[in-house]
């Protein structure tokens, strides 16, 4: 593992020496004002859109008590990332093609989620055990593949490492557009199906009795999580992407007791964290984007803790008189 981290930082250093497009010194202010180069700006906006979508998606994830499932999915992306890399190398002669990598990641994350559900159904394992098995096995397989790729005598494989911890600065423009578009679609889907997702998250049995296709809606909710994880690979990285789903949603829960406001706030917190994190990481070269985004989200959470305490005190339910019969 340590070797992977070291390579990640080396790559960054050599990329600088190789004369990439970003300037030597980027001020924090420049970064916050999104004036650090067009590509990085598009990447930052993409991360913000992702944060805005991950917030509400995470709210439903939290309410359906499936937070750990997202963790399993994100770690299970790694074998697919490697496979996508190899397929794109074989087909196009170049490995670092984001569409291939993300497609691979989506397929293997989907397989991972399927394995978790199959394990639960067929082996009577509790969800947390099934998730732990898939998470560690998937990640192990991915690390194995990663070390194989590192031995290939080609250039560009080092870029794979950054999918572990995320990197928005210096992202290719086409990739940045791809991610921004995917995040925007994700956000649109959450908004469009908000009512149905709310119903299934609260009372699936009632929904089924009323004739809603509960299984397909459940699949949609899981699919949204999966796509969030995959889209988040390049900006937040697969190890930390689950935090972008969970922390803004948990922060929003501290602020509000209504699902609509909670989803809105989670989206705001998510995109604010993405903005802060991507900017900090663009200004300070050695800070991985994923870590900066997740720490920003964590900071927002900690700052919100007093709000919850105050809210609790102000909105404590008064002793209610029974309504008349």
């Amino acid at each position, binding site marked *: 593992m340590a070797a992977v981290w070291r390579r990640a930082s080396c790559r960054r250093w050599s990329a600088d020496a190789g004369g990439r497009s970003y300037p030597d010194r980027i001020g924090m202010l420049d970064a916050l004002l999104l004036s650090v180069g067009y590509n990085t700006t598009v990447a930052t906006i993409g991360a913000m859109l992702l944060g805005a979508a991950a917030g509400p998606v995470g709210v439903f994830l939290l309410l359906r008590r499936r937070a750990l499932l997202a963790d399993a999915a994100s770690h299970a992306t790694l074998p697919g990332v490697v496979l996508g890399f190899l397929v794109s190398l074989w087909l196009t002669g170049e490995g670092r093609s984001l569409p291939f990598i993300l497609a691979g990641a989506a397929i293997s994350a989907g397989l991972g989620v399927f394995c978790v559900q199959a394990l639960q159904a067929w082996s009577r394992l509790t969800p947390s055990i099934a998730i732990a098995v898939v998470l560690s096995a998937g990640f192990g397989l991915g690390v194995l593949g990663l070390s194989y790729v590192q031995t290939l005598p080609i250039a560009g494989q080092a870029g794979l490492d950054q999918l572990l911890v995320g990197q928005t600065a210096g992202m290719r423009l086409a990739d940045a557009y791809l991610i921004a578009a995917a995040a925007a679609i994700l956000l649109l889907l959450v908004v*469009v199906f908000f*009512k*149905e997702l709310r119903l299934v998250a609260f*009372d699936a049995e009632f929904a089924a*009795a009323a*004739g809603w296709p509960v299984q397909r809606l459940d699949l949609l909710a899981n699919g949204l999580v999966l796509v969030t994880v995959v889209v988040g690979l390049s900006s937040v990285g697969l190890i930390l992407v689950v935090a972008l789903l969970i922390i803004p949603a948990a922060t929003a829960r501290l602020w509000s007791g*209504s699902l609509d406001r909670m989803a809105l706030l989670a989206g705001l917190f998510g995109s604010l964290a993405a903005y802060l994190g991507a900017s900090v990481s663009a200004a300070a070269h050695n800070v991985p984007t994923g870590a900066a985004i997740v720490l920003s989200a964590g900071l927002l959470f900690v700052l919100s803790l007093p709000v919850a305490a105050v809210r609790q005190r102000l909105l404590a339910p008064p002793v209610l008189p029974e*309504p*008349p*019969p």
Partner: protein
Amino acid sequence: MSPQLHLIDNAPYAGNGPVVAHGLSVVYEGKPALWNVDFVAPAGAMVGVIGPNGAGKSSFIKACLGLVPWASGWAMLLGQDPRKSRARVGYVPQRASVDWDFPASALDVVCMGYYRKLGWLRPVDRKTKAAARECLGRVGMADFADRPIGQLSGGQQQRVFLARALAQDADLYLMDEPFAGVDAASEQVLIKALRTLQAEGKTVLVVHHDLQTAPDYFDHALILSTRAVASGPLEQVFTAETLQDAYGGRLAPSQLSALVG
């Protein structure tokens, strides 16, 4: 949409009543929860589904709704395959089946009863909210519309659930233990609301655990003990023999005589 059910010609039974079950069985992991139940509810009846714990009362309701697979037999609601009659059937699940810490107000929950009518993509509008408030008023909860559901008492939560079913504006209501863990005031409100439904010509089928109140609340009964022990007009089926049969030795003779007089 939904797959065709067993190819049994059940059309001749359609006129029999709003709830018809024939040879209905439900099996969970090899163990029967419901066995070969035949039942017909007459239109406009208030039916109590009565039986000891684990007698398959909830399974019966869920099987009637098509929510759990039928191991044998079939059920029809309002003369149709239950999967086709859903728009005309209101359902009140067990209160304990949902998480009451869910971020929602009483009004939010009642609005869910209108989702089907709204259909895909259309958000809850002002008109829907006003209608939902009215439903809350019918169960004496108008003042609690904006209160988070987690802050309501058990009886109030159950009233919210009933209000959501009222919002469905159905012809047939199936309710799973609506009186369980409910305070006396709420119980009165609930039974009054059910009687209003009956007066409007709707059929109400209620899973009920309290033998004491059953004769007061229902005019028909289905007495279950995995199989159907008896069903029909309450005074005919609510007897010492049937209860003894359903409950086995769990009812003392003195209790029995107190119940059936």
